[in-house]
């Protein structure tokens, strides 16, 4: 699977799981759908960014760092908009970014080089 598609699918899946865990917080249970959709989009953006990065830079450590940074920034923005739950949102969001960064570097397939034509 190519790196961007892998990042997109994995980011979306982990983002959805991440959002789904909000169910365990009774105070926000009424906003579950919005949280899951938002979290899925957040994971999806982080995944695509990590996938695009993996296409440009072939390095697992840098991929992990990049995923961590993107996950952190996106999660921070979400937490900032929520005015709370910083720890509960930022920590898992950053870890999702890391996982996606690792997976796109390690398991994503680089596009085949274009054949030379005259």
């Amino acid at each position, binding site marked *: 699977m190519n790196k961007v598609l892998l990042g997109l699918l994995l980011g979306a899946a*982990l983002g959805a*799981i*991440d959002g789904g*865990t909000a169910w*365990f*917080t009774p105070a926000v249970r009424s906003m579950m759908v919005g949280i899951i959709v938002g979290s899925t989009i957040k994971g999806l953006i982080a995944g695509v960014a990590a996938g695009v990065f993996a296409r440009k830079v072939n390095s697992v450590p840098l991929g992990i760092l990049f995923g961590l940074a993107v996950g952190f920034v996106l999660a921070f923005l979400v937490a900032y908009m929520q005015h709370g739950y910083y*720890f*509960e949102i930022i*920590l*898992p969001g950053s*870890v*999702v970014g*890391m*996982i996606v960064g*690792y*997976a796109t570097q*390690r*398991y994503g397939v680089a596009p085949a080089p274009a054949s030379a034509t005259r």
Partner: protein
Amino acid sequence: MKFLSDKTLEHLREAAEIPDLTGTRYRLLERVARGGMGVVYIVEDERLQRRVALKVFDAPGADRDLANRLTREALVLARLEHPGIVPVHDVGTLADGRVFYTMKFVQGQRLDKYLESVASISDRLRIFVRICDAVAFAHAHLVLHRDLKPANIMVGSFGEVLVMDWGLAKLLEQQVRRPTEVADPDDTIFETPTQAGNSNAGTLPTSDATGHGTVMGTPGYMSPEQERGEIEHLDARSDIFSLGALLRFLLTSDSKASAATARKPRLDKALYAIYSKATAPNPGDRYPSVPQLAEDVSRYLDGLPIKAHHESFIEKLGRFYRRYRFFILLIGAYLLMRVLIVFFMHR
């Protein structure tokens, strides 16, 4: 009457073996190894100012069949231009009548010695795949090695893997032509060797110097049909058997390994299946070609299912886990972290 000591006799024998390089462009430097057919020396090519290995018969006056065999070995090597096969530079006859050929001087270690510093199974398997590549190339050019064993594999100082000693090689078809024969322009042609010094041109041996019924090879590594001397019936699957024995050696470092002894080596199930299929007593049960054997080993290395072994569901899960271990652990750690966050939030 005074008897000569063993040491003196050995010294005299070595002195008698020293090749007379008069009239050639080579200068003798040192002796490096003795093979089944001859001795290998390091010589300096004075024209090109480089070191090359020179293989020559043990002693002057060796019989003509053996001389032809050495010439054949050079011709076989000349047709096999591959990074995994040592290239031959020259062939000819010395002033003392002995046939010689020169080849690239490979600085490195024999496989059995080299393996002492290679612990990882995957690194060993990668070496095996490279050996397979060279042998597959030879088979594609209708050449069987017939003596694949650790002592005939060299690993160079830059990690290059070279298949050596093609002295027992068999040409699968009459492809070696005498110089007067007209060749198909599309076919690989053996040119008459360019002779160094007083080389003997024009006497090309036949496709196989080993007659039916003759047993040549190394016990433990040669196929059952080769052991029975069924030379005319040998095909690529005979070398596949030897590669299987070599695989076992690579994985167990057991130099006495033999399919005949049939002691089951302690191997991963999939690797054991590959080994068993390669060394099946019946050639029909073996891999049909070397690339298929190499492909199975490569698939194993990539964590993919192999063709030699039908795995159970549990084995599939195990392979999946091994392949994605780090990723699965990461996801597990993430889920654990999620559970802990929820747990501490509700305390």
